């Protein structure tokens, strides 16, 4: 700025160490940081996507191809790139699937307009164009989506199966798609239709065996808890038992911490000891009187009680994890009791069949044929710890997708078909408007094509070739044509091939990606205040991956 003054020593306005950068170079560097992130993720998209092996600072390895998980593990520090981590997380929370797509889309949107920024187009115009285009895209999805008839349970179920298997096709478990999609759909259908709280689907991991040995328990299963001597004499299977869930410690112990006993005679002493025994016996008798055959408690069940129950053919388990017990109550009915007195029949639950069973190397307590079953448990098997964890993540995604599909049964074809169709619709519209907005909208359309293109690239197909074929199809109104990674043609009608996805996944992905891109474009200056204290600089970024993200960190032009 022109000051009518001779050179002056610099004026210290901000705290020492504050780092500011502004202008176009800053914006461009933010964009390149986002692109670097997207590049790391790109190879995981689609049915032929590759997995990432990430080793954290404690040396634990994780293998995954879930976008949200990868970004979480990468520990990204670049401020602009953190936005992408946020949208992946939001997508994960909102719909649970499509986390990779949303990041890729956001980064691609930025890449497509980078040239315009370099040429000096105002970011505001670009943002306006993006918003318009995303509105148009959502409208288009709403107009083409197919609503599936829920009245026919058979047909509805097959729809859910298809959605689940589409979500799984990009994951580690795609080879066992039919098996797992069946499992996921059944699990979701176990839940209360009104509420669909996915936390009520328990997942237990048992290393060993093959993944086909995984099983769905329509009820609750949990690992055998630590038991005292006497447990082996207890019966291990029941038909129609009454089940009592407690939050009481069944052990000899002080009644109250700050109570004190003063005795005057030796004989009194024995009476006190007897009284302590009496207290626990009264509890146990009260429990027996309820007629319960299975006694579960959040708190420990001691030697004495275990033996006592064994003598009366009652099964007991102490130290049951709180969430497992909660799910038992959901499944068998009744409620958790914090006292042994005054337990009535309605506080007890029941189930068709209870047994303790060997699964792999572990013993499991299984409650099946539950009357009020609004919960279920997936027992996952697999060769390695990491492998099972990845299976769990993949199933979680699939469960979320199925859940969304149950809530609103609108679907679109996957495999890039819907993206291409939106792109061609936006292109059409763009040609009818004058001005710079036209270019921005076309850029948006082009960015959408990244999804089918990346699927092709990852599958080793010639993306340019296939994109051309697909564009022709879409221009002729064949709106459900998408990428086929298996067939010789490379393209197919994905609606007929049952590659289906809930439309909500796409709507949310486009919304989030547009918002994130606009957020990054709207920044014209970065100010970084010095950190108040040098905390330990955080875990080292894993080699190769995050470094690339950090490289795009040029701070642009320093201010004055």
């Amino acid at each position, binding site marked *: 700025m022109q000051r009518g003054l001779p050179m002056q020593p610099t004026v210290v306005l901000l*705290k020492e160490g504050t780092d500011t950068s502004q202008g176009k170079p800053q914006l461009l560097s933010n964009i390149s940081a986002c692109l670097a992130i997207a590049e790391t993720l790109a190879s995981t998209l689609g049915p032929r996507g590759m997995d990432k092996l990430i080793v954290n600072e404690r040396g634990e390895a994780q293998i995954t191809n879930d976008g949200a998980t990868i970004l979480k593990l990468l520990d990204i520090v670049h401020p602009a790139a953190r936005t992408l981590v946020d949208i992946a997380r939001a997508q994960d929370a909102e719909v649970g699937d499509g986390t990779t797509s949303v990041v890729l889309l956001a980064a691609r949107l930025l890449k497509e307009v980078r040239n315009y920024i370099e040429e000096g187009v105002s970011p505001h115009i670009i*943002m306006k164009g993006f918003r318009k285009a995303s509105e148009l895209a959502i409208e288009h999805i709403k107009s083409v989506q197919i609503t599936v008839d829920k009245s026919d349970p058979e047909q509805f179920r097959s729809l859910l199966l298809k959605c689940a298997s589409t979500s799984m096709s990009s994951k580690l478990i795609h080879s066992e798609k039919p098996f797992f999609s069946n499992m996921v759909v059944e699990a979701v259908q176990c839940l209360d239709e009104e509420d669909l709280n996915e936390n009520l689907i328990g997942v237990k991991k048992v290393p060993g065996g093959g993944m086909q040995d995984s099983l769905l328990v329509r009820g609750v299963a949990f690992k055998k808890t630590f038991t005292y001597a006497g447990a082996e004499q207890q019966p291990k299977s029941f038909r129609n038992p009454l089940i009592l869930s407690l939050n009481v410690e069944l052990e000899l112990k002080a*009644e109250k911490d700050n109570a004190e006993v003063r005795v005057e005679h030796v004989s*009194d002493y024995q009476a006190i000891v007897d*009284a302590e025994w009496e207290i626990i016996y009264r509890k146990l008798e009260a429990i027996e009187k309820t007629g319960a055959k299975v006694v579960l408690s959040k708190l420990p069940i001691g030697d004495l009680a275990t033996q006592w129950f064994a003598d009366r053919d009652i099964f007991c388990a102490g130290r049951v994890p709180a969430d497992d017990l909660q799910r038992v109550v959901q499944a068998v009915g009744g409620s958790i009791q914090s006292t042994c007195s005054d337990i009535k029949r309605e506080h007890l639950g029941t189930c068709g069949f209870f047994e303790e069973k060997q699964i792999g190397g572990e013993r499991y307590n299984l409650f099946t044929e539950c009357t009020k079953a609004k919960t279920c448990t997936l027992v996952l098997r697999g060769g390695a710890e990491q492998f099972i964890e990845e299976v769990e993540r993949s199933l979680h995604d699939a469960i979320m997708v199925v859940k969304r599909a149950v809530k609103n049964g609108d679907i679109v074809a996957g495999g890039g078909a819907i993206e291409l169709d939106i792109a061609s619709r936006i292109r059409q519209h763009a040609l009818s408007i004058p001005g710079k907005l036209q270019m921005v909208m076309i850029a948006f359309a082009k960015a959408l094509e990244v999804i089918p293109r990346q699927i092709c690239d990852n599958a080793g197909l010639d993306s340019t070739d296939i994109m051309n074929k697909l564009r022709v199809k879409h221009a002729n109104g064949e709106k459900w044509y998408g990428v086929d990674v298996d067939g010789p043609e490379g393209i197919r009608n994905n609606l007929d091939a049952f590659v289906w996805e809930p439309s909500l996944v796409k709507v949310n992905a486009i919304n989030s990606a547009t918002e994130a891109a606009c957020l990054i474009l709207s920044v014209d200056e970065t100010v970084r205040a010095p950190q108040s204290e040098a905390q330990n600089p955080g875990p080292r970024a894993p080699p190769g991956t995050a470094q690339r993200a950090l490289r795009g960190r040029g701070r642009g032009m320093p201010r004055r």
Partner: protein
Amino acid sequence: MSLKVPKAQNIQLFKDGYKHLSGLEDAVLRNIQAVAELSDLVRTSFGPNGRNKLVINHLGRLFVTSDAATIIREIEVVHPAAKLLVMASQAQEAEMGDATNSVLILAGEMLKKAENLLIMGLHPSEIIKGYELASVKALSELESLSTSSLPSPLTKASLAAALKPAIASKQYGYEDQLAGLVAEASLAVMPSNPKNFNVDNVRVVKIMGGNLSGSTVVRGMVFGREPEGIVKKVKKAKVAVFTTALDIAQTETKGTVLLKNAEEMLNFTRGEEKQLEKMFQEIADSGVKVIVAGSAVGELAMHYLNRLGIAVLKVLSKFDLRRLCRVVNATPLARVGAPTAEEAGFVDVFETIEIGGDRVTVLRQLVEGDAEYDAAGGSEKTRTATIVLRGATQNRLDDLERAVDDGVNVIKALIKDPRLVPGAGATELELAKRVEAYGNGLKGLSQHAVKRWAQALEVVPRTLAENALGGAEGNEVVSRLYAKHEGPEGAVWGVDVEAEKDGTLSATEHQILDSLAAKQWAIKLATEAATSVLSVDAIIMSRPAGGPKIPQQAGNWDED
């Protein structure tokens, strides 16, 4: 330029390490330079097309915002003169909650204009006098510029229209939706005498995921946790609010329970259970269906509450508890026991719903028009409304929240003083014109300062135009506006940020109206800040004391 007499060396007035800057060159001009730098920093964030700043504060937290108050709070200005401006803008935030950026820009521009006069040789006190004259004139002229005022009684449409310009300057493109939300929420809690409107009664809950169009207004409160017990949904219920823990009373004084014989020991627990049961039975008998606890809920207490079918919500924040009392119209009770009829509150709907991936508990009152509204039901009118904001990233949600806060503050300001003036820079330009004319009629040196002050006001329309249309357009638009203002009814012409024609528009026609009071304060505070910077002729800075750094308390900024 002022003449400098060489100072005698070696006369030490201050202790070692003191910085002493005095005279025009060293103190005044350098102060102006620092202030100009600060106002340049926030200038690009002004108006609907203002750009965002990415600020990382000393704790490493990320902000993406164009809200000047937030930016200057987080970047930690250290220059003493610039701090004066920061304080002025904070005063504006406290007084009006809006137009903080105007204060910074105006004060910065006034000082820049003063710089030329100082170099020409005018004494600062003459400039101060001129500025004060000009500001008095402008404020009296401002009164006559009011074109309309907020209609009474308030309606949603009229409130939304008045809010729109304020929100547009923060979230351009979303102002319609946000203004609607803020207007709806504010009307829901508007007391019969609007003068008593309290900004604290409009709350914001941010839930990541989805996009802005999913945001809603809840007539009541939303808590980001689930109820403790098994009862999750209650309708038309009496509510008791307790600030204490729901458990067996514990003595504060250390005490032990003395047991003399076995009999006492046996009955000890039973006595405790009986006591609790009686207590909650009494509460249940009084018709209470929902209990809000301000502290921990004991397990035994929970057991009885579940049995009695009473829903329990834990609210740990004292502020939230207070607000909740206003929603249900209850008196918080400091002891556990049945509330009297006056002490108990009433809530229409208590439910747990899923928004995005979060499960939240909602307490709300029904209003006319809702499905289950029952006019004779004796519902309370809620005195707190919550805006549930949805957005893709945390930063975006924070920014949306700031826009909502500004909007609510504007409502408060408008209720105090319902007069509106044309926005979009029209008022500033008209004032500049009138003050310039006034300056021409003055005698003496102060006329120069008055005219400079008038020119400084032009910065508002110029910045609006520069941010929206690019740097070169600023002066063009300002001169076009001057031409328009000469004509009849010219006072309402302002900057057209969409630039459909020549960059000017009639502000009243497009319903771009600002609060007169906000403008008044902005001009007052900016002039005060500028004159106090000018009146400084020496800066004496003591050496910062050594010793360990005092750790900074990072209070939550949302705390009140």
